[in-house]
């Protein structure tokens, strides 16, 4: 085991001595581990969402549900930037706009099929992320917030003023996905069940993309890159001292956030088949940020809940629609004051697992147990001391 693990690390002058004891394997069941439970819950949610069109396939429901899914995608992207890397991005909707416009222009003006627009969208978002991030990410966090806000406005105003983006009226007639002459617009029938409307089908595409997006963002957040992001968020200088190039870490968070938003933008463009600069106002950047903050920054389940709340609440509570922005504003202040980690904090432990914290490792007294050929000068000082963790081990060794 240990030997094939060694190859997984780069060559380094210093290796840690082997752990003094083997850690117990983490539990993997549905109810006795956080990870297992969250996976099961996630699977259940996906199944429930996938079943929705079979219960209620009215265009209205499907349209709302698709928008909500796209919101989830956007929020997962912003969560990488704000939740993991701790960079406040107030112009996040700009990347959404870039994705929507690039796919819109590629399919309508240049006449490419939708699937070919995907790489273009991703490339454009990477470039946009670098352009916006490169000059600004050296700034302090509050400056960064307002600069991104400025960038968001620049993108929107530019879209409003250019001819290729259709000016204030935007782009219309964006086609849906099609492969080899077969288009989603044609509808489909499986096992006697008809999917007549392209929205229904489109809903499934969105669902697949979003599931991949959510899992992908979550995985990135747990790996080496995710740890680097969180380290930068907690303490930039210390992160730098740990050999993390904080600038690269920040810009990578930015790029990934941008790509996620761009893909959401492409889904939105096909879903609505029309886009206009008005859909990319600061208001929407703020709404996405609210979703992330309300749900819990850095917490995947929290962010999903936040996204669903922000996108579905005005639809489900019609009377509330008028007041929603005011209520969101107040809610944001209240959450920051009283529960800054959000509804489902990133550090949350399932309530029934709390008591089953892993037991502390056995009493090892590693410091004392070592030193077989300790210089003879100082033991007189060392070992005459009470309460030293070393004493037990020392005695154990002598015995």
């Amino acid at each position, binding site marked *: 085991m240990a030997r094939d693990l060694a190859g997984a690390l780069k060559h380094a002058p210093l290796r840690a001595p082997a752990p003094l004891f083997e850690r117990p394997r983490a539990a993997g069941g549905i109810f006795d581990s956080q990870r297992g439970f969250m996976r099961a819950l996630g699977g259940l949610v996906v199944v429930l969402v996938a079943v929705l069109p079979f219960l209620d396939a009215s265009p209205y429901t499907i349209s709302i549900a698709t928008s909500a899914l796209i919101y989830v995608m956007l929020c997962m992207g912003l969560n990488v930037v*704000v939740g993991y890397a*701790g960079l*406040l991005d*107030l112009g996040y909707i700009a990347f959404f706009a870039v994705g929507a416009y690039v796919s819109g222009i590629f399919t309508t003006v240049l006449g490419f099929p939708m699937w070919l627009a995907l790489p273009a969208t991703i490339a454009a978002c990477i470039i946009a992320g670098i352009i916006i991030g490169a*000059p*600004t990410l*050296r*700034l302090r*966090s*509050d*400056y960064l*917030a*307002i*600069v991104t*806000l*400025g*960038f968001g*406005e*620049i993108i929107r*105003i*530019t879209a*409003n*003023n250019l001819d290729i983006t259709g000016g204030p009226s935007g782009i219309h007639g964006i086609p849906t996905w099609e492969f080899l002459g077969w288009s989603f617009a044609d509808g489909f029938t499986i096992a006697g069940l008809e999917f007549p409307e392209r929205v229904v089908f489109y809903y499934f595409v969105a669902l697949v993309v979003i599931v991949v997006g959510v899992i992908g963002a979550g995985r990135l957040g747990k790996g080496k890159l995710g740890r680097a992001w969180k380290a930068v968020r907690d303490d930039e*200088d210390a992160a730098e001292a740990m050999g993390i190039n904080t600038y690269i870490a920040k810009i990578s968070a930015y790029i990934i956030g941008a790509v996620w938003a761009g893909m959401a933008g492409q889904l939105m463009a096909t879903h609505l088949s029309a886009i206009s600069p008005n859909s990319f106002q*600061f208001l929407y950047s*703020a709404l996405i*940020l*609210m979703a992330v*903050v309300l749900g819990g920054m850095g917490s995947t389940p929290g962010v999903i809940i936040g996204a669903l709340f922000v996108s579905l609440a005005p639809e489900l509570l019609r009377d509330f629609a*008028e*007041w929603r*922005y*005011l209520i*969101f*504003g*107040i*809610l*944001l*202040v209240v959450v*920051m*004051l009283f529960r*800054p980690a959000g509804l489902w904090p990133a550090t949350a432990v399932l309530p029934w697992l709390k008591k089953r914290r892993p037991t502390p490792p056995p009493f090892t007294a590693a410091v004392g147990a070592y030193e077989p050929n300790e210089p003879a000068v100082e033991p007189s000082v060392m070992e005459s001391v009470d309460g030293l963790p070393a004493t037990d081990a020392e005695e154990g060794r002598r015995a």
Partner: protein
Amino acid sequence: MQLIWNGLIVGSFYALVALGYSMVYGIIKLLNFAHGDIYMLGAFVGFFTLSAFGISNETSIPLLLVILLLSMVTTGLIGVGIERIAYRPLRKSPRLAVLITAIGVSFTLEYGVRQIFGPNPEAFPIRLESAGFDIAGVRVTASQIVLVVIAAALMLVLAHIVERTRQGRAMRAIALDPQGAQLMGVNVNRVIAIVFFIGSSLAGAAGVMAGAYYGSIDFLMGFIIGLKAFTAAVIGGIGNLYGAMLGGLLLGLLESFGAAWFGGEWRDVFAFAFLILFLTFKPTGLLGARVVERM
């Protein structure tokens, strides 16, 4: 010449709002996102009072001054209230939390006003439309002169407060070292409240003046100007009051020329691009002191 004059008018609005930004930032290092909305609130307080008395299409300058004072006091108090409720409990929190709270406050103000006054622009009851005259080929209206004079007077008063009074000294002390100031017997909370009062009332004054100048007000009018005022504060060197004034005027001029050369629709793009350039190459602004980053 016309461009310069127009730029100065707009710039004096920016400067008034930027002062509040800069003061608050200088003293508690908080980017008060809701500051632009205080400006909007100032305009609406004026609108509300005048409508309540059934006044419309008035042109009297004394009335404008009365309304100006009234909204300055009101917005000042609102500013203090916001600080007390939303910002003070978070003074020791991470910057991100405070910023997000400020966005929440901004949202609350904007959409609160929208709920009360409706989403459509309202006509401001005082219009200063007096005949214009030409000075050296520049079209100048009396209203413009009045506005510039008021703005200049307010800035002079502020400069006096900060430079000459006890409270002003306390403000500068807190800006340098909050804990030290507290140990020296400065009531930090009180001074911060005063700063919020002054900053907010200046923004409120700018709001009323903008209402009287442009003639129409709406609940989102503070958003762009907040952004611009921040730009102005950064150009001048955030935390530095003269810098804020200078930055405001400079931004007004830059925009006026930028709009003339590139077309009016690019005006905002021009301003924000300037902000980004400044922050990238000279984040301390024109008059800001170089901050030594210590760990």
